[in-house]
């Protein structure tokens, strides 16, 4: 599983950072930073799905 994050769609809602801090950090203005490059460790797949499913701007996609 991989995460595709579209920084241009992100508006800093911070839902991903709240739900999956292992996968997302935020910059000093509150926009998301994707922490993982490449495959998501299997134990974090559920959190990756939660981050994607709760983004109001559809800025996160999961590629299985």
């Amino acid at each position, binding site marked *: 599983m991989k995460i595709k994050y579209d920084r241009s769609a992100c508006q800093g809602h*911070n*839902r991903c950072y*709240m*739900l999956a801090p292992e996968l997302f950090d*935020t910059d000093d*203005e509150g926009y998301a930073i994707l922490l993982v490059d490449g495959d998501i460790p299997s134990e974090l797949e559920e959190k990756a799905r939660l981050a994607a*499913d709760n983004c*109001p*701007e*559809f800025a996160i996609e999961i590629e299985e």
Partner: protein
Amino acid sequence: MTDVRPPVADWATDFDHQHPDYAANAPEIWDELRDGCPIAHTDRYGGAWFPTRHEDIATISKDVVHFSSQGVVVTEERPDIPAPMGYAPPITSDPPFHSIARGIMLKFFSPKAIDAWEPTVRETCRRLIADIKAKIDAGETTIDIASNYSQHIPVSVMADMLGLPRQDGDVFRGFIHNIMEQTGEEPPYEESMDFYLDTHVAKRRNNLGDDLISYLCQADIEGMPLLDEHVRGTIGLLIIAGIDTTWSAIGAGLWHMAQSPKDRDRWTNDPSVQPFALEEILRFYAPVTMARLIAEDIELGGCPMKAGDWALLPFPAANRDPEAFERADEFVIDRARNRHSAFGLGIHRCVGSNLARLEVRIAMEEWMDAFPNFELADPDAVTWSTGQVRGPRQLPVLFPG
């Protein structure tokens, strides 16, 4: 509203979000419109549109060319706009100035910066709960927790954040009432929010601290300090947008819990559900309906929108659209997929959303810890506000002795 508004003949062609019938029945009105006339219209307010589908609300929110933010509160008159920032940057600013004004605020309101305010918020909630317990001990059996709890939390936190006296809460609420509820009378300058803020900002410039007013006094745009009107407008925005809104969300969360023993038990006995419950409160009881002024003619969903018309953005209606949410009309305490738009969509996403979330979370945590079981004294005595911020304004709760 102090005046009596004419009855609404038909919500699809004559809607009025400031009518008392709207306050009492908004969710039913949204559902009815979404099924029958997904973009309603009214000739009131000089012409306004009212979409109820998530898709249309998202489209308007993200189209900053046709839909200007220079008017965000629907009025009979069109605002006299000081370009480029509007009255209250960044909410009333359009691109390109918007992102400059917003960038200044985002640093102060980022999630990590806001985390530092948790002890202040918790202390505020505990102080208010202690006051309520003292009233119970003194024999009071019915207490309005809107006026004794939910209302005070954002007022007190905002006063602390701005470095203004907490006891000015009533003054803030007077300003909010004048601006949000359209009393129609412009107060003289000496009684206006502008005068209040000008006075405090002038004093603060000579005595800077680590509060938000001092931060704005020291902020710059390409080396130039912010204009006085910019500083004043932004502080005014925080008072207007940061208080009623959060008060409403906390009140609605408590209103829900007071009526749902099942959800109260789940909250208390399964703390892992709490983050989802808080987002569901924000979805199901989203307080804020924004507005835009149409800048250029555009057709949307077959509706001919004309420059100068208003477009309302009822995010709470978007949050209950069955096209966007499963079981949209049910409060699902453990809803795991929840792309709600309580804080708006697009570039104007609520700049204070991290603070609002912190306040709602701590307010619910502290209340549910103190009163894991509580019930409304009289459900019919609960009143909801009219207009663009929706929440319970009276919430009498029973404390049997």
